[in-house]
């Protein structure tokens, strides 16, 4: 849990608006949604930050901005030392291949025409790995992901959601990137697989000191994984603190309500009777 002096990625005052048309309301009128509203966040090498928060609070958007898939309307993205802001549309050449993302929806994140082997090999190929090394790497990854080797020959539509999600994770970590943004990577996995995948992240971090922005709803699952917790609400970061602190003394009221709502895997406690009013 050593935090290096120089940050790997700095997000400074990121703002991102989306416009959408509301035809009925005002003819041709537009309304602007601030998906991300002035967020600053620093990620160091070897660090895992868990980003939690309300759904629709802009977590995915922030993650996409961090890897450069979305252009912020305002604010700076500083990776290593080079800076990138909205003025340039293309991702800087030197950044390529150094950051990866695990997407929220597993079904569309793999090319339906490629076999799993192809998909997993793609980043390696792009990173210039030679063939035998690629094959070895893919075998290792398949072991990590607990998927049978013969799955390599199959196409995405032949897998369950959880399996696809694991493959997507495999692709993200394959070429040993410096930063991984994982958008709810374990949401569709069963608990024991979840734990194994999280373990995997830990292992990889130890091996390659990758930094990780982990977007999740499962507070309990990241508790022992994350170094820092970041909480978002309505496009703003309401709390950033070390994991221990967060779980023991949450600062923001929203953080507290989150922690309270986490279901306890014990039917004798905290069970929902249905008598409580269902509003939040």
């Amino acid at each position, binding site marked *: 849990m050593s935090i290096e002096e120089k940050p790997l990625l700095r997000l400074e005052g990121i703002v991102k608006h989306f*416009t*959408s*048309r509301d*035809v009925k309301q005002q003819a041709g009128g*537009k309304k602007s949604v601030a998906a991300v509203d002035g967020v600053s966040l620093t990620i160091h090498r070897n660090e895992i930050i868990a980003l939690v928060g309300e759904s629709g609070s802009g977590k995915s958007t922030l993650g996409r901005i961090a890897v450069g898939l979305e252009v912020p309307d305002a604010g700076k993205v500083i990776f290593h030392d080079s800076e990138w802001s909205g003025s340039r549309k293309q991702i800087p050449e030197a950044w390529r291949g150094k950051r990866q993302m695990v997407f929220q929806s597993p079904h569309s994140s793999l090319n339906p025409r490629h076999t799993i082997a192809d998909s997993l090999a793609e980043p390696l190929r792009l990173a210039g790995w030679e063939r035998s090394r690629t094959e070895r790497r893919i075998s290792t990854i398949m072991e990590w992901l607990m998927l049978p080797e013969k799955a390599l020959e199959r196409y995405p539509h032949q897998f369950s959601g959880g399996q696809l999600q694991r493959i997507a994770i495999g692709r993200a970590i394959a070429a040993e990137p410096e930063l991984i943004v994982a958008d709810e990577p374990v949401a569709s996995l069963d608990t024991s697989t979840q734990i194994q995948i999280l373990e995997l992240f830990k292992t990889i971090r130890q091996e390659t000191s990758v930094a990780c922005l982990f977007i999740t709803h499962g507070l309990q699952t990241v508790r022992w994984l994350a170094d820092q917790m970041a909480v978002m609400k309505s496009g703003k970061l309401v709390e950033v603190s070390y994991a221990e602190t967060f779980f023991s003394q949450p600062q923001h009221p929203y953080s507290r309500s989150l922690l309270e709502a986490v279901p306890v895997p014990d039917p004798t406690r905290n069970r929902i009777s249905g008598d409580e009013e269902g509003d939040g």
Partner: protein
Amino acid sequence: MRIWISLFRAVVIIFSVGVLIFLLMRALPVDPLATLAGGKSANPELIAELRAQFGLDQPLFAQLGDWLFKLLQGDFGISIQTRQNVLTMIGNYLPITLQLLLGSLIVIFLISVPLGVWAGANQGGRLDQLLSSLSMLFGVVPIFFSGILVIQLFGTTLNWLPTFGEGEPGWDRVVHLLLPCLLLGLQAGSSLTRMVRSSVAEAMDQSYIRLAAAKGAGRLRIVWVHAFRASWMTIVSITAMNAGYLLVQAVLVEYTFGISGFGSIMIKAAQESDYNVVQACALVVSAVFVAANTLADWLHPWIDPRLGEREENEL
């Protein structure tokens, strides 16, 4: 803002088409006055006189400038072949072709599109094979061929429908245009059938179709409300893209059914190098095309709200 951009775009396209057609027509190794003489001899004075009357004795760019200048005043010139005012000619011929197109559009929407939806909903099945082969058939059989078949069948053998012409406005017109519209619609609609088919087939694989089924929607509702909706975009874009084309395509039915329409004068004028007529017709076609496409562009965000302004046509 969008209005101005689409207007500007429309003007650019129509202007380019005009200039292009003007230059292309003159790139042909053809003297329109030779066609006018039509197989009779003419003395040099007569030819010189005609050349002057039609302004063909001017240098190329002077002619172009003159034409454009007159266009701005709404003057399309006169036909070299018939000496009629081109604008009047188009005014005479265009309405009937537009009616023909309207009829074909109705055929397209009543026959071709449903055909595509059915085929797409049953992709791979017997019905699909039957319907798509049928629509392909309508697409590739030349109209003069199918035309004469239906004329012989309905016009002379059964004597149910008139064999030719456009009839008088009103019910008579409907009766006269029935067969032409059917053939034109089926031919023009065959590509749409296929497009709709594949887009419906694709939609049928989506999980929202499963959701609709889970809601308890019946097969008809799933196909016609949920899957069909996904093909609207295709229908509107393809129809718009084909609008100008259809105007010219109409020449085939017009010729076969003895209807004097826009397509006929355009092709005839092109064959006779009747410069002003060809140019004016090309402008009309491009205007129809641009209008249809601008309309479609405007409709797109309503049809598919996912297309933000960001995506579509900044220019």
